[in-house]
């Protein structure tokens, strides 16, 4: 360090309260003129001890805390936790509940990507896209509010299903939104994609080669922008993604611009998935299902109006005496930022023995020094912004 200072290198500190670090990330940087020579990320400012807190809470009590791991994509973390617990406890999830999970998750992916788009362009100095994306995000959040009662931190999934069915008219509103969205994405693309200033700042900046990305465990849209076809929704389907036709969105060069292109394409893809899922959901719209259930009333498991797959919560668990058998389970899901892993060890009591969260942003921060090395200081924000890092998720 001292040798560097003698050579007229400058040591500067970025953060932890820097506006473009999306939270509290500190970077200790060594600059030579304007060229970044060395970067050392310092994380842990938002460490809340989620893994330790799980030890003293029952499975159900821990459920709302899971939302707070990443506040922008709460549904995914709840899903990862529920899948792991269901695997240990051997609970079966009704198909209608799985479809409701899928639809909410895909809407959540769009909301998360939209917020990323706004804040990424804000990092680049464009203030107006933030208002555009919040206009659309507001409509998705309103849908969630109608369904779950909350605008963030939904706490909507339970072990073996979801808490309640769609309210009356929700599906029609969702379909209306799906019809409207692609035109709005066209609007963003008209403003952003061919914008010469945007191209100048993001094209060929922060190139991540497939080798580097795989070595550092980068997942999600970041690695798909480098041309690696890794999408768990397609390659090892976890929910009912196996029944839908998921198309991976890939780009080739792996620079900041391609990461933008992939995310825009993923939002369009999510819209398509939602439309497909609403078409295929067992039981159809809730109003009709309710009438058919009353008229049928046979209560047999195979019945297509009141059978198991039409229910919402397969087997209700009592939160106090819910004790999964001794064992362990891993669930991996594709969250908006990459692969989220939840690993649970149970020792037969009503509290989890060990919960481990593997979060995609953790790896994205780790790879940052490699991406910004020997680049201009002004390239830091286009690179870091395009990685879509959410700091609460890094520190857990």
């Amino acid at each position: 360090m001292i040798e560097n200072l003698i050579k007229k290198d400058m040591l500067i500190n970025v953060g932890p309260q820097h506006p473009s670090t999306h939270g509290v990330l500190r970077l200790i940087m060594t600059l030579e003129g304007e060229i970044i020579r060395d970067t050392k990320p310092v994380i842990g400012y938002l460490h809340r001890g989620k893994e330790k807190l799980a030890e003293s809470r029952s499975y159900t009590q821990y459920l709302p805390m899971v939302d707070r791991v990443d506040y922008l994509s709460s549904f995914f973390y709840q899903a990862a936790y529920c899948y792991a617990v269901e695997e240990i406890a051997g609970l079966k999830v009704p198909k209608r509940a799985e479809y409701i999970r899928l639809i909410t998750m895909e809407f959540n992916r769009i909301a998360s990507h939209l917020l990323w788009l706004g804040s990424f362009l804000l990092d680049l100095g464009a203030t107006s896209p933030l208002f555009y994306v919040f206009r659309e995000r507001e409509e998705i959040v309103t849908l969630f509010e109608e369904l779950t009662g909350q605008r963030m931190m939904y706490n909507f999934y339970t072990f073996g299903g979801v808490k309640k069915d769609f309210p009356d008219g929700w599906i029609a509103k969702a379909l209306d939104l799906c019809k409207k969205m692609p035109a709005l994405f066209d609007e963003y693309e008209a403003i952003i994609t061919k914008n010469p200033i945007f191209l100048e700042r993001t094209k060929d900046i922060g190139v991540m080669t497939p080798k580097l990305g795989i070595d550092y465990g980068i997942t999600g849209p970041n690695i798909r922008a480098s041309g690696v076809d890794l999408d768990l929704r397609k390659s090892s389907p976890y929910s009912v993604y196996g029944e839908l036709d998921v198309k991976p969105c890939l780009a080739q060069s792996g620079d900041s611009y391609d990461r933008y292109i992939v995310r825009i394409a993923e939002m369009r893809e999510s819209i398509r998935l939602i439309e497909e899922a609403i078409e295929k959901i067992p039981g159809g719209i809730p109003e009709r299902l309710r009438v058919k259930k009353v008229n049928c009333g046979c209560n047999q498991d195979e019945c297509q109006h009141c059978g198991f797959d039409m229910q919402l919560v397969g087997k209700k668990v009592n939160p106090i005496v819910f004790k999964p058998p001794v064992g362990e389970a891993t669930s991996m899901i594709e969250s908006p930022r990459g692969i989220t892993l939840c690993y649970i060890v149970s020792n037969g009591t009503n509290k989890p023995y060990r919960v481990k969260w593997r979060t995609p942003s953790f790896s994205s921060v780790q790879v940052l020094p490699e991406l910004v090395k020997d680049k201009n200081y002004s390239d830091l924000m286009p690179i870091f912004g395009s990685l879509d890092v959410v700091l609460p998720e890094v520190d857990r």
Partner: protein
Amino acid sequence: MQVIEVKPENILETVNSLKKEFDMLISVLGTDMQEYYEIVYHLLSTSSSKKLMLKAKLNKNNPEIDSLSEIYSAANWHERETYDLLGINFKNHPEMERILLPIDWKGHPLRKNYINNDERLCWNER
């Protein structure tokens, strides 16, 4: 998911032979299992999405295992996190420091016998 149990001294050989197929290290984690510490590695193949779990049991008195940071760069931070929260020493790791907790923190919270009685903290922070 396939599970392979490895002896701690053979971890480098095993991972080196698996590296060709399982090219991505997803996570490294440790669990305090009362009699021993268990280290779990999650590996993923990017071409076929196959998942693999490697497990190694470590001695409770002197928990140490070879670091994988030479083979996978991703192991660097995951191992630091495991050291920070569980106190496992990874041999030949480039910088074995705390990552999530402050550097002057005492003890390793995910150990089951951990009690926070750091006198520098106020009573309600302990």
